[in-house]
Every structure is written in C-alpha cells, then in structure tokens.
C-alpha cells in the first residue's frame, strides 16, 4: 500500500489515478499510524508553503515525516518542503535536506509553467528515462544545485529538478502529469 500524505494539497486525485494506471492502490491519509505502516510514502505538493506547513504542524506530520524509514517521494512543493527554508513567505520546511528554496528571478516569467528537459540524471529513480526527456513543471520557487541533486533542469540557469537523501526523494516536476516518462518515474519509485 502507498500512502499519499493528506494535508489539503490541491490536486492529489491525479496522483491516485496515475498510481491506479500502474495497478497500484494508494490511500490518501493524514493518520500517522497508517503512514508509518505503508511501504512507500508520497508527499504531494500544490498550494502555498505557509498553508502546507501549518496543516502539517496541526496534524503532527511535521514531526513524523523526517523519521520515516521507507522510501518517501516529495513532489513539487512536497520536494521543496523537504528542505530547510523557503523564500516563499520565509517558511521553515522539514529540514530533511539542508538548503534553501529560492524564488526565480524576474528575468524570466514566474511561475515556470510547462514542459522542460531534465538532465544529469542519477539513481534508479531515473531508470529507463533518457537524458533530455520532458517533464511537466509549474513552480515559482526552486532548489538550487546542491550535494543531494540527482537531476537538473534549466530555467534562467541550472537548478535541482530532483534531489535525494537516504530514503527521501524529491522531484520538482509532476510525474503524474508528465505522460509516459512521468509514469515511468512513478513506476521506478515503486520498485525502489
């Protein structure tokens, strides 16, 4: 069973459907016991960082997530919240991966919205994914290149499109919305 952490993030339905298309059942839950007992945990993301952290604190999930031992995949805001701090309202994240989340400069349109190539891919999360494959992204804030970077993209410069530390993975793109390549990445995560 896959747990999708429920903290009021916008569109988690698509994620559930994407997993269903892979023949996998998932449960949207904020129950710590349930989350703990699932073999994989997905930490989705959409919405604002402040509101998300507020909700996580309310349910105590901010204390649970950093101690999870099974593979955890943060998506979009979920990836950003794995980090220390975000420029989005100066909010503190979960601090699992050290580094700050920054806002794109106004030299480019913000948010970045659409399909961009991903490069310098490592770890089994990117098995059967080609360098330069397209992923769908919608975000105004980004994780710069750090030691934990396992995939890069370019929008007004290189940034982390995927990060990993121990059992924690984060992807800035939406695999559930990135057609066949996105589906492959979800499949890869499920077999980690």
């Amino acid at each position, binding site marked *: 069973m896959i747990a999708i952490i429920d903290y009021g993030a916008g569109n988690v339905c698509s994620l559930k459907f994407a997993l269903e298309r892979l023949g996998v059942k998932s449960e949207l839950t904020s129950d710590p016991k349930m989350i703990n007992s699932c073999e994989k945990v997905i930490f989705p993301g959409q919405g604002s960082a402040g509101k998300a952290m507020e909700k996580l604190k309310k349910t105590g999930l901010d204390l649970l997530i950093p101690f999870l031992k099974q593979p955890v995949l943060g998506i979009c805001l979920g990836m950003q919240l794995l980090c220390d701090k975000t420029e989005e309202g100066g909010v503190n994240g979960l601090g699992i991966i050290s580094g700050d989340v920054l806002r794109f400069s106004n030299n480019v349109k913000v948010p970045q919205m659409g399909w961009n190539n991903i490069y310098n891919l490592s770890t089994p999360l990117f098995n059967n994914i080609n360098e330069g494959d397209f992923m769908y992204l*919608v975000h105004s804030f980004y994780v710069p290149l750090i030691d934990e970077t396992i995939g890069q993209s370019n929008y007004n410069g290189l940034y982390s499109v995927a990060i990993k530390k121990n059992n924690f993975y984060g992807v800035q793109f939406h695999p559930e919305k990135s057609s066949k390549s996105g589906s492959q990445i979800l499949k890869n995560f499920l077999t980690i």
Partner: protein
Amino acid sequence: MLTKRVIPCLDIKDGRTVKGVNFIKLRDAGDPVELASQYARENADELVFLDISATEQKRKTLAELVLKIASEIDIPFTVGGGIRSVKDVSILLKNGADKVSINSAAFKNPKLINEVSEHFGSQCLVVAIDAKQIDNNWKVHLVGGKVPTKIDLYEWAKEVENRGAGEILFTSMDHDGTKNGYANKALSKLSSEVNIPIIASGGAGNISHFIDTFTIGNADAALAASVFHFGEISIANLKQELKKNQIVVRI
C-alpha cells in the same frame, strides 16, 4: 529549455464538446473524454475545458466529468466556466483539475483571485480575459465577450498578476472564430507588461498562425479548438513545423 505549449480547448455543453464560432453559433465536435485522450496521445501539452453551460445545476455534471478526465489522461488540464467561489475551485481541484480558469467572476470580484491563489497557490489559477478593440483601445469584455466594460486590457492584466494569477488566457474577440491568426500585437505587449505566462487564444486557422504567435506575439502557449477538433491541423504535424522554425517544443 522550457517549451512553447500547444493547447487544444474543448468547449463543453451538457457533457459534450462544442466550439463557438464568434462565441454564438455552436457546433458539436464529440465526446470530451475521448477527444482529451486522443490529444494526450498526440502530444498536446495541456488541455483546457471550458464549460459554457456552467449553471448551478450543471456544476455537479462538470465535477463528474473532471473526475473522468483525470482518471484517463496523464497531461495537465484546466477547467473553466462559471467558477465563482473558492468552494467551486476546491471541488474541481479535488476532482483532478490541475488549474482552474476564472473570467467574469474575477472581474466582478477581484478578491477572488487573491483568495484562490492564497488557498491553492497561483500555479493553479488562470485568469481568462476576453477583450476587443474599441476605438483602437483594447477593452475587457465579459460573459463570453457579450458585455463590454470600460477597463483597459493591460491595466486589468497587471491587476490580476498582482492579485496572484499564475497565468493569463487572453482571447481576442476580434480574432476569435476568424481563422485569420492571433492578436499578436496585443499579445506581445501583454507579455512585456506582465511577468506571468500568456496563453494566446482566438484566431488560429493554419500552422503559420502558431509560428507567428510564438515569435511575433511572444506567447508562451497557443490555444485553439476547431482546427484541432475537425482535423484541419494535426498536433504532431504542427509541432514538427514549429520545430523546423526553431521554436522549442516537446515532441
């Protein structure tokens, strides 16, 4: 590199796809879920569903349709038509819409833009603006382009950006349904006035119109309906031609 997006738009009435020619005459062009899956397979970058029948009674039907679409397609889609409140937005997002598009309601109650972006993030909020040139000035129009206002297009675009819109879908009422090309001059100005992505809408008739709107109009995405629905332009062919013209697209 971030690619330019090609977006088929499906106008929905009573659960079926229709396309308004100058927003008045309607033609049937098929089942929305089937069409959506076909476009996804053809490498459409996103889809837009506009419920032009959106009345209170139809709201539930739309929510159910959104759920069905989300279960079948694996590319992002936007839903618009008759959205008036944070609650309306919440239902559509929960059912699997990635973004919502708000038009008249945002104009009548601009605070709605702030509320939606604060609740769900600006990434999921498209503000649709219909405009028409009156005495050489672009003026915002409401209710599917039927009701003129005194407000300037660029002024309103800046306001929606400041209030938290993530994207602007600009339809030129002067171009919509004409198949004579997009309103590239206005689009280009819009792109320089605001710093959020702009979707061009209204006027697509052939492939060169798409090339022009991405190069001359500086649009981030181009939306079209009938040219796709009736098979006049195939998305695969369109993208090859865009690529030949040095426009970065996802193939």
